[in-house]
């Protein structure tokens, strides 16, 4: 076990949602290379508490890369320099002694900063809510393989379902767009037979809810690089196609129901 020494952290501190923020500099003399980035912040917070100062507020929960709660802008990249990795799974061995590390919260108008590095990502919940339900029979557990799903389809849906909703895509997007998140959620269900009944209602509602909060996609591809689950921007193309179909099909349905 070796140690990373003499780390300088420039961390965004902001007392509240409407307060003026600023960078503050903290020194960490030594930390084990097995520590995760969040554990580094824990060390900083311990020191702050010992000095009777206010610790840094940041989000974290499972610390094993599956809950989507943590998320920091580390040296200008969502979740830091390591690919396909959430902040909690980013280890200090990826840094070298003497590094200066800049940490900022995810920034988007739809993700207001609550305090320090913590942001409110409930705009994502609005998008998911607007997707509504799928028609699934309730009651006893259904038989396994009752609905046959070809393996490639199941795999593609699983790739989309990997999304943990961390918001790294929005944070990385130069336009503050949530297309990768929304498209992952839409394609996850739209690819599967169980998702077909509400497919077009869901797509229209989710895209239009997304539109209320977020920016537009200019196909830079930054989201794909930032995604801790490496979700491909191919899902965005699926959403773009399904939105058009949704508008046409829903319009026809409305005309029928007159």
């Amino acid at each position: 076990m070796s140690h990373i020494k003499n780390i300088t952290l420039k961390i965004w501190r902001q007392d509240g949602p409407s307060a003026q923020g600023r960078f503050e500099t903290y020194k960490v003399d030594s930390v084990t290379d097995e520590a995760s980035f969040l554990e580094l912040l824990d060390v900083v917070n311990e020191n702050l508490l010992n000095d009777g100062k206010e610790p840094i507020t940041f989000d974290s929960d499972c610390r094993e890369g599956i809950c989507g709660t943590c998320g920091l802008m580390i040296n200008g990249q969502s979740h830091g320099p390591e690919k396909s990795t959430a902040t909690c799974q980013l280890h200090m061995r990826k840094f070298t002694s003497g590094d200066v590390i800049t940490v900022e919260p995810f920034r988007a108008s739809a993700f207001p900063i609550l305090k320090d590095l913590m942001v409110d990502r409930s705009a994502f919940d609005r998008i998911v809510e607007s997707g509504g339900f799928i028609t699934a029979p309730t009651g006893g557990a259904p038989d396994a393989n009752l609905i046959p799903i070809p393996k490639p389809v199941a795999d593609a849906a699983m790739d989309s379902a990997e999304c943990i909703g961390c918001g790294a895509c929005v944070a990385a997007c130069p336009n503050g767009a949530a297309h990768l998140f929304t498209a992952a959620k839409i394609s996850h269900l739209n690819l599967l037979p169980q998702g077909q009944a509400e497919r077009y209602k869901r797509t229209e509602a989710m895209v239009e809810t997304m539109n209320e909060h977020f920016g537009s996609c200019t196909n830079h591809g930054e989201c794909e690089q930032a995604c801790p689950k490496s979700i491909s921007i191919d899902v965005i193309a699926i959403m773009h196609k399904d939105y058009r179909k949704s508008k046409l099909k829903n319009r026809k349905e409305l005309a029928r129901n007159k």
Partner: protein
Amino acid sequence: MAQVINRQRGPITGSATKARKKQPFLLDLYSTSVGKKYVMALTGLMGLGFVLVHMVGNLKMYLGREDYNHYAEFLRELLVPILPRTVLLWILRGGLIAAVLGHLHAAATLTKMNREARSVKYQSARDYQAATFASRTMRWTGTIVLLFIVWHILDLTAGTVNGGNFVRGDAYNNVAHSLNRPLVAAAYILANLALGVHLFHGVWSLFQSMGWSHPRFNKWRRHIAGGLASVIVLGNISFPILVLCKVVEVHA
């Protein structure tokens, strides 16, 4: 929250914060960023088709004055005698002008939307991983191309900045005289390089915006964009270079 199919506007949700107003179908489609990107893609495709045909048409310059001017006259006589002379040409021009206006409006409104989506910028430097020079400069290369188009029309269609040698109907004469001015030729080359950079991202981007994605063919989309951009730029910048090198003779 459950979806409701609503007579006024289709699926709405309990969590919608803004009531979407009822409006004609195409305007409703255009009101979202995804709809605006369809307009970006389709008007861009029209522009791409134009610049490609424009470049191929101009290659007639290498066949000489007679062939070049014959092609110019052919464009004026498209669909004659079904339509009177120049009518289809004006219809095509109208379509292109509409495409440029649509492209501009979508670009302006999307840019505004994107600025609002991150009203407070990052306070430290970003480290971009995938964004290319082309994708980051679309706004600027687009502006250069737009200014060039205005100047290009004044130069070779209206003849007002052609340097006193403009002869209406003698397209070969006008092009050769215009490009024989080194500063004009340099501006022409620069504008076409900007066009190439714009197309390199734009052509790839339009497949994504339209949802034209296919796991088997997706790797071709970058190549199609690079290939088309290169062909168009190489064809277009060959004209000023070869005019300045006297390969294309001004008084042929």
